[in-house]
């Protein structure tokens, strides 16, 4: 188990090199020059001389392989450099935004689980009946609704018409409700569908019939015997969602002006702020790998047959 754990951790190194290299190449292949974007905000002119000067100050005049090697060398020493745009340390910028994203992620996942698992359960138990169809129709809607539309709709109802919740921004727990529900609804739909199909598969197995035959109540069979075995695919989906959400939910954060990593990444891309893009991507990649590792370890706990030796 320990060996497996460290092997997986070791995988982080090639993953980190891979994602930063891809991000670096993509950013440089894309048209647009960070120096021009920096100097040209109001559309006012900076001379060619000024552009060249700033480019050399920022170290952007070296050949690309040199720039990347420099980035890796410094990153290995824990220095992710400074944002081209704001001059702030990339590490500080990313770490300052990460808690906001983490809070939103956990809350929306809570919403997703609280809705998704019961909905999936009911759907599986009442398979083929009206309740099942209704739940799955809602799930389909939940997956299909664009987040920004749903977000605005919720905002119009709960902030403007009813005045119960603030429309956007960060502040008290009330500010968290709308973005968490918006984000959670889409995931809950996915989780509900996964729970349903996974449960249906398990419910058809022999040991469930046995459990029923020996006189256990329907509830015990469902929750104790069936759900636990059905959890593995659900946990996988939840893990993937969690990893994705940690990268920042760009649309939800934008609609609700939530100060998370998603908006940080997008504005960094728009301003061709390579160090900042690298920093956010690194953080997301690490989070993703660690969560997947946690999910794999959780398999062993949920299913005693799974061993990592």
């Amino acid at each position, binding site marked *: 188990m320990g060996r497996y754990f460290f092997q997986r951790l070791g995988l982080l190194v090639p993953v980190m090199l891979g994602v930063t290299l891809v991000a670096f190449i993509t950013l440089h292949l894309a048209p647009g020059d960070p120096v*021009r974007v920096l100097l040209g905000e109001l559309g006012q002119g900076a*001379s060619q001389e000024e552009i060249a000067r700033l480019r050399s100050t920022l170290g952007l005049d070296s050949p690309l392989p040199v720039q990347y090697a420099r980035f890796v060398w410094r990153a290995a020493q824990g220095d992710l450099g400074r944002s081209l745009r704001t001059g702030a340390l990339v590490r500080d910028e990313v770490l300052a935004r990460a808690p906001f994203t983490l809070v939103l992620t956990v809350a929306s996942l809570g919403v997703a689980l609280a809705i998704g698992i019961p909905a999936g359960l009911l759907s599986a138990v009442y398979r083929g009946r009206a309740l099942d169809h209704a739940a799955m129709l809602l799930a389909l809607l939940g997956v299909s609704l664009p987040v920004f539309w749903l977000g605005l709709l919720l905002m119009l109802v709960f902030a403007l018409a009813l005045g119960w919740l603030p429309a956007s921004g960060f502040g008290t727990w009330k500010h968290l409700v709308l973005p968490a529900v918006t984000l959670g609804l889409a995931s809950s739909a996915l989780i509900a569908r996964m729970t349903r199909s996974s449960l249906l598969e398990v419910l058809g197995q022999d040991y469930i019939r046995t459990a029923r035959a020996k006189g256990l109540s329907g509830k015990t069979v469902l929750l104790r015997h069936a759900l636990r075995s059905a959890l593995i695919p659900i946990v996988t989906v939840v893990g993937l969602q969690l990893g994705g959400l940690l990268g920042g939910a760009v649309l939800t954060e934008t609609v609700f002006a939530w100060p998370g990593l998603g908006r940080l990444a997008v504005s960094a891309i728009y301003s061709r702020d390579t160090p900042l893009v690298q920093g956010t991507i690194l953080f997301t990649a690490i989070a993703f790998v660690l969560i997947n590792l946690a999910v794999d370890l959780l398999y062993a706990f949920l299913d005693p047959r799974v061993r990592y030796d």
Partner: protein
Amino acid sequence: MTRNLLAGLVVVLVLMTGSGRAGMGAPAPGETVTVAMLSDATALDPQRTNDGPSFLVINQIYETLLVRTARGLEPRLAVSWRAIGDRTWEFKLRRGVKFHDGTPFNAEAVRFTIDRFINPQARARAYFVLSMVESARVIADDTVQITTRFPFAALLSHLTHPSTAVISPTAAARFGADFVRNPVGTGPFKFESWVARDRITMVRNDDYWGGPPQIARLIVRPIPEASTQIVELESGGVDLIFNMPADSVARLERNPRLVVYKEPSFSTNYIGFHMERAPFTDVRVRRAVGHAVRVAGLITFFLKDLATQANGPLSPVVFGANPDLPGYEYDLDRARALLAEAGVRPGLRPRLIIFESAEWRRIAQAIQAGLQPLGIHVEVDVLEFGTWLSRLDRGDFEMYGSRWGTVTLDADYTLYSLFHSSQIPNPNYSRYKNPEVDRLLDDGRATADQGRREQIYRRAQTLIVRDAPMVFLYYPLSTYAVRSGLQNTAAPFSWINLELRKATVQR
């Protein structure tokens, strides 16, 4: 790293469970006003930034030597000024003014600010604003002289640009590179805190030389989505939003709890030509395009009258703008005749580059529709802003859509940059070259007499409109909406000049 992350998480959680803004200092007595803008500031050091959101905040915390109002140039930190010879100006400074950190404002602070601005090792981001300055000299504690490398009549106007705001020398030295996040100026509001992409909080400067503002706390929130800004304004989450989408203005105007302001701005929207690319090398073709675009319709239907039709490169609020330019009337027959004269046959496919925005998409559609009957099929490239800039720099276009703001409100700022041949290829992207215009623009810089300068610029604009390096479309209005309890606000010529010194709040 993990420890920092955990600490941050704890702070975030504490903030959320508290009544709101725990740990951010006790609220000052009086009213809080919240203002929304589309993106966050990038830096709050006037010399380390050149974007609207940063300047909006900088204008609350810092002050320039002069300001330009509808009445002309007026004193701010300088009380009077006079020319000494043709390259030097002497400024008498306001006395008894202190920076927010207690440092006295004086001639030394002005000298420090200007030296730092033009320092060859670390020039200001908006260096072009003072690139003509040679030196600043302290004459007395309240007297400073600024000398330019060549006679430059628009210097006073340039000293109204927010990048030239006077900074506290002690604070700049104390914070070093972190001065961008710890601004210290002389303005009506003092910086309190900055939560990136969430809010910048300022508090009233009780020692403000012009008398403290009534607003006790000023919060500026970046809200990237315009629809969200509108919901926030209508539900009372924010008190003021800028530049609302044209389609939403009528609805906001019907809301009794809101007041919508529409004011002339210093900007101009235009379509420029690449004058070295056929067929736009021929002035008749460029004029034909001017006659084929139905600007009045564009303004009424697409912009909901939130703009006035342009007849030249300068908005009427700019010093030196020529009100008597003929402009280009919508006249398809005339356009056809001009094209025939120039020997242009149908089937042209010029590329028009614009940056992604609802407004520019609509303009591009109007241009496409207008030129279609002439047999010109415009291919529109809608680009992300950074890509648009680099296409402009590479000269990779036949036509380009752009907006230019005359931030200093002096004709030189725009005419010299866009139409002087020394500015080819950037920012004179049209490659416009007219020796007579060059000479006039040089004269305009060297002439001290403002009346004569005005005549010079009027003549230059007449020539420019005749040569048609661009089709000047419209001067957008600067719009903002406020909760009706917030009164006596102003945003002269642009949202970045938001002015709350005299604002009052009645809830």
